[in-house]
């Protein structure tokens, strides 16, 4: 084409409104539910009570965080249920049975979680399995491992763990502090170079590669981290219940996926975040809390959760489509 130096044409660019709809919708949902729950149960307006409620939410929050990581790199992790169960039973059987150095043994449980996640990562990033399929297989396998460790509910969780979980830090229940730590850890991860790489890989793998991102390594690490998070979830449940269960993880698989989606992390990867999922997961907990406070028939609360999922996803899609429609 010619080198004609025509006057430069620039399209008119309006300043974009700075509201992030994803965050707004999720926050609004959580706030609404908190208000409703508090108005239903005035007794809940107490830091100890809130701490207890958060404690029951902890396992789901961590599994949701794990799921979010996998979804951010355009994957999915069904094996969180298995990793959760292995960590849970390990805590109740091995850590509990051993005397003395519980901290070191708990560390070993975390390493086991990391390792199981890394196996997922190798299958997916190394051998090219579809995440859904790879983790479908490892979920079953890890579930079997958990059964080997502990054939049925029981075991003894070290008292240290239970008392930490039930304790307070500067008057604030430990469970709330743990959530704060989770969010802080996420914030550190998100703002690190590795965090940017996670989003880059989820956004567009090929382009991330063109930019020099070690895509496989990032994927592998992300799945390993997801394993770690799921394992923490398992430990949290062990602490809250002072017992282990080889089947405790499975219900969290689809629930965590719901939380991720309600929170607004895109299943297509690259957008969203752990913070959003944590809020959404807590919303799910609040819904069942509200359902039990209102003493709803079981089918009503099942239907309500399903409807909420639909409403949130549809609303989000509509709001986003609107918002997209306005950007140039």
């Amino acid at each position, binding site marked *: 084409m010619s080198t004609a130096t025509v006057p430069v044409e620039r399209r008119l660019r309006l300043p974009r409104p700075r509201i992030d*709809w994803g965050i707004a919708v999720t926050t609004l949902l959580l706030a609404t539910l908190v208000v409703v729950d508090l108005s239903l149960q005035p007794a809940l307006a107490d830091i100890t009570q809130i701490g207890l409620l958060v404690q029951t939410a902890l396992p789901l929050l961590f599994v949701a965080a794990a799921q979010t990581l996998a979804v951010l790199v355009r994957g999915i992790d069904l094996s969180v249920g298995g990793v959760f169960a292995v960590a849970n039973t390990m805590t109740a059987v091995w850590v509990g049975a051993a005397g003395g150095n519980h901290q070191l043994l708990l560390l070993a449980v975390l390493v086991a979680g990391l390792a199981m996640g890394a196996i997922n990562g190798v299958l997916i990033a190394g051998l090219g399995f579809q995440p859904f399929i790879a983790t479908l297989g490892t979920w079953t396998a890890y579930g079997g491992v958990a059964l080997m460790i502990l054939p049925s509910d029981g075991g003894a969780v070290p008292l240290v763990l239970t008392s930490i979980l039930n304790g307070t830090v500067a008057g604030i229940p430990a469970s709330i502090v743990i959530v704060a730590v989770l969010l802080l850890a996420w914030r550190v991860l998100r703002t690190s170079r590795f965090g940017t790489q996670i989003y880059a890989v989820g956004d567009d793998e090929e382009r991330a590669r063109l930019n020099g991102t070690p895509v496989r390594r990032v994927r592998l690490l992300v799945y390993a981290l997801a394993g770690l998070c799921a394992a923490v979830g398992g430990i949290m449940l062990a602490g809250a219940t002072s017992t282990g269960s080889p089947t405790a993880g499975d219900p969290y698989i689809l629930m965590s996926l719901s939380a991720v989606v309600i929170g607004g992390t895109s299943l297509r990867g690259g957008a969203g975040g752990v913070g959003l999922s944590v809020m959404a997961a807590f919303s799910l907990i609040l819904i069942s809390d509200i359902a039990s*406070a209102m003493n709803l028939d079981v089918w009503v609360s099942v239907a309500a959760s399903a409807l909420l999922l639909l409403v949130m996803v549809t609303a989000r899609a509509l709001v986003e489509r609107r918002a997209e429609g306005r950007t140039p």
Partner: protein
Amino acid sequence: MSVRGATLLAAAVAGALTLSSCGSGDDSGGAGSGGGSGKRHEIVLSNNYMGNEWRPQMVNVAKFVAGSADYRDKVKLDVRISDATPAAQIQSLQSVIRKKPDAIMIDAASATALNPTLEQACKAGILVFSFDQVVTAPCAYKLPQDYEAQATDAVNWLGTQLKGKGKILMDTGLPGIPLSETYVKVWKKVLAEKYPGIEVVGTFSSQYAPGPELQGVSAQLARNPKIDGILSGAYVASDIKALKQAGRPMVPMTGLDFNGGQKQCATEKLKCFFIGAPAFVSGMAIERIVKVLDGGQQPKQEVYFDTNYVSEAGQIDFPHTQKLETLKAGENYYPDGADSLVTPISFGAHDITAADVLGK
């Protein structure tokens, strides 16, 4: 536009929830005032699973007893059903504890996982009464069934029937739950100690559901040309069906006391042993709770010895620890009743009908 949309949505959600909460608030308010005037004990039944046939019948019996003439004025029963995980039941319990009812009766998702929460309830002055799947929390009253005794009686019956010799199939139940673990442990131990001539040639996992039991037994039958007995903790009806489908002769079988299996064993004169697991244990729990709340005495732990059933009186020829009865139509099984009924239906002075149990 979008701002408004989102706000409207939130408002709608909030509105709907508040409205429905108001509705229920009125409800409980009314009941509360009734309790204030009539001194009704507020009892909350905490259940965590509805997926099989036993739990809904258990819940229905509780409702029936609470609404019966004797208890109508004494008891206000709330039923809370959570998801089938300890975490979900803990959460549900916490909202119960916040309301401070007089008693919580609980069929627990786990023997141990709920202990910390139940201790809280006790501390809050709530009477905790566990039944069926009992908990180990020291402060809770317990009305357990004796799984070990049940399992021992069942395997002794089969051993006697087979005269200590033969090839059998064994049910491993639902991997991961205490009941199955106890059954399998006892069965293996008793077989090894008392009946070395009986060989377990195949196992299957009934998962306490008719489908998997049928599939499991069928698969094992196809592979084992000779089977002399089936040691199961679940559905005799499924075993019968599997044997019939495979064109095999009937063999001695054990299972839970569901009407379907009992009907068939009684009418076809089959050798069957039924472990008693009555759904009315919830009604027994209510009776005991009211007794305690009214100031009566109740042991912290009362083992409920179930009545087990066999098809014919002549089969009773083995060392047993639990009560044992033969099947009698209309008494402990119902020829015209639904297959899914847990028998017997009624207990004590109550006159509970099949329709009550099935919630019709």
